[in-house]
């Protein structure tokens, strides 16, 4: 035990910051087998592991880590996949420092075990060594489930239910499945080929994925239920991006983070004109917001923009909600921070193109309802920041398409679907929901956790032989 505690946390090699700002390749290279086995030895195999409880999908963390320690990498990946359909994704994008690694006992006296990196290692090893095996699918139960939205929540539901013997069709509005994994999270944080292979795995298990299918416009939820589906899961994700409602927000050059990231990630605008979708690269880019989406947009901008990228955030560095790792990566890549700063208006040229943003300095006052100190403007501290591209990353509202066409599904005042949190059940019989359409704006793993719970409840619902409409 003491021996184990002495091993230092293994460093994961990364692309040099100066080099990587010039490309879209993934930043960390991942562990070698030797590094992974060494890191795995750091796990003290707690009898009552806190890390499992810290994981939204309750992966048996000590078990898969032990398998890595023993050099059984493929077995480790399969162990992971018992509870997590997308380990290669989660190993990269989960905020482990707030989940499993936060409660890791080893971390109490030093640095926690790199659970996320080990997860990534096992999943990558299995995929890269062609060892991915398709689990045996039980005989068809006779039930069919429609999954609306092919993002993390929907793909989790699809994987879980197909393994239980139900037929699953995923309806995806975009031309590629993956949701935020393909349109939102940048290539340098999550290579798209990984998402493709995860989706491919689902297809091989028998999940039917229909792209270009906008439920609510093509078929409504009611039509799905009367056209042969026994139940529906809604995982339509984040919806309409919020803007700040300040002057000049519709100038050319002002993007929502969703648009900016979709153009670059999904449409590959960084390869324009080889790909047809353009993006304004800009000389100076301002990104408004302090979350992970803001960080993704800013680090994307660094790879497109020759001069300067600045994060504008109304609170301080300590309050920045983005992952520490991402902020650190951004800083290494030359990202600038205008903290305690809030935009007042965007200023354009006569052609309607963005030229600058006028901001005001803020100071932190009394704590607000979120418990964070409320930023208050400092009178007379207005100043201008030159920028020709601005990206607004201040969150998303709910997409109205499903509630518009299925009014029985209860939504809250923000338009998010109301569910029973243990089961994902909505107010409409046979209809379940999870992910950002419920939460408003959260993480991949929380959406997957929702999917997991909903899949269990869906399975129970279908097994009762009470499909409602059939």
């Amino acid at each position, binding site marked *: 035990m003491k021996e184990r505690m002495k091993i230092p946390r293994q460093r994961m090699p990364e692309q040099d910051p100066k080099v990587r700002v010039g490309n879209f390749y993934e930043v960390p290279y991942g562990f070698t087998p030797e590094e992974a086995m060494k890191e795995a030895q750091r796990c003290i195999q707690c009898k009552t592991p806190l890390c499992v409880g810290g994981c939204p999908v309750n992966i048996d963390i000590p078990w898969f880590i032990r398998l890595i320690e023993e050099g059984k990498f493929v077995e480790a990946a399969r162990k992971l996949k018992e509870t997590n359909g997308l380990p290669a994704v989660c190993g990269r994008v989960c905020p482990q420092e707030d989940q499993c690694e936060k409660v890791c006992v080893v971390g109490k006296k030093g640095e926690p075990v790199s659970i996320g990196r080990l997860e990534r290692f096992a999943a990558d090893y299995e995929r890269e060594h062609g060892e991915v095996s398709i689990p045996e699918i039980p005989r068809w139960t006779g039930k069919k489930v429609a999954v609306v939205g092919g993002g993390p929540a929907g793909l989790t539901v699809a994987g879980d239910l197909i393994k239980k013997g139900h037929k699953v069709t995923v309806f995806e509005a*975009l031309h590629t499945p993956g949701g935020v994994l393909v349109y939102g999270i940048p290539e340098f944080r999550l290579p798209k080929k990984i998402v493709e292979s995860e989706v491919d795995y689902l297809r091989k298990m028998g999940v039917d994925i229909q792209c270009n299918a906008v439920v609510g416009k093509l078929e409504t939820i009611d039509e799905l239920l009367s056209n042969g589906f026994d139940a529906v899961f809604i995982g339509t994700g984040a919806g*309409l991006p919020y803007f700040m*409602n300040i002057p000049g*927000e*519709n*100038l050319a050059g002002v993007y929502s983070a969703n*648009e900016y990231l979709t153009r670059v990630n999904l449409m590959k605008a960084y390869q*324009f004109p080889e790909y*047809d979708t353009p993006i304004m690269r800009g000389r100076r880019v301002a990104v408004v917001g302090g979350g992970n989406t803001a960080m993704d947009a800013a680090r994307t901008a660094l790879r497109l923009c020759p001069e300067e990228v600045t994060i504008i955030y109304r609170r301080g560095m300590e309050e920045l909600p983005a992952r520490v790792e991402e902020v650190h990566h951004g800083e290494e890549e030359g990202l600038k921070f205008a903290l305690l700063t809030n935009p007042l208006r965007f200023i354009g040229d006569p052609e309607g193109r963005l030229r600058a943003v006028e901001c005001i300095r803020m100071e932190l006052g009394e704590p607000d309802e979120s418990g964070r100190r409320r930023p208050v403007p400092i009178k007379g501290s207005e100043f201008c920041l030159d920028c020709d591209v601005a990206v607004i990353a201040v969150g998303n509202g709910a997409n109205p398409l499903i509630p518009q066409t299925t009014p029985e599904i209860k939504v809250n005042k923000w338009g998010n679907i109301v569910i029973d949190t243990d089961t994902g059940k909505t107010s409409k019989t046979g209809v379940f929901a999870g992910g950002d359409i419920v939460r408003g704006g959260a993480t991949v793993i929380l959406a997957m956790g929702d999917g997991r719970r909903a899949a269990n409840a869906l399975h129970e619902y279908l097994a009762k032989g009470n499909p409602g409409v059939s």
Partner: protein
Amino acid sequence: MFEIVEKRHLAHMVNLFSIKAPLIAKKRKAGQFVVLRLNEHGERIPLTIADSNPDEGTISIVVQEVGKTTALLSNMDKGGFIMDVVGPLGKPTHIENYGTAVCVGGGIGTAVTYPIGKALKEAGCEVISIIGSRTKDLLILESEMRSTSSELLITTDDGTYGYHGFVTAVLSEMIAKAKKIDIVFAIGPVPMMRAVSELTRPHGILTMVSLNPIMVDGTGMCGSCRVTIGGKNRFVCVDGPEFDGHEVDFPELIRRNRSYLKEERMAMEEFVYHEGATCCERKET
């Protein structure tokens, strides 16, 4: 993949495509649009559905060559395949028996006016249509528009056909003659929709326009298509595409539509360089 089952040349650089898309054909209503992507490297562009045939499972779109994607599409033929077609998107036109409805179509906007006029006629409206183009050769869907209208007026900017002048002149005359007009639908280039809206505003005639901003996803996720309507930010893809023309900030829409002029020109030049002069415009030059 979506098969092109018919291609019809309508006018100089304007083609009608019928595309096999049975589900969309069954569901679509007047005023709605599709977003399409031609190939793996393609961009997503919105195009309004001009017509549909649910029995044959086809929708039709009218395409004018204005950039690389539309040029590429115009080079495609019957039997070709479009990689992605998604729809029907946007809210359908609100159709009811308004009384007298004037449908104004400018350029290929006529292709959007046509299904609206057709639906209005079916709802019992008296439909008067005014369609205009720069010159006679660019006029489209004349016989289709005639079939949905009790009266069809035609204008050309150069006087080669019909009334010599703009659609607004004809509409203005109609209003001056104290013709009772209950609603106007104006669809065409942004300056035309703006001019029609300005014309009807002092007379208090409800005027609906169909907007054509730059879009990416078309389902409300990206906000690229936002336009100020009555002082509020609205998303054309989910809140529109039709809005009260008297509330639309047209200058803003024009400016936003010009966001990528430089990139569009660059894409076109690169396309011509690689593909050679194959489109009709370049055949002439």
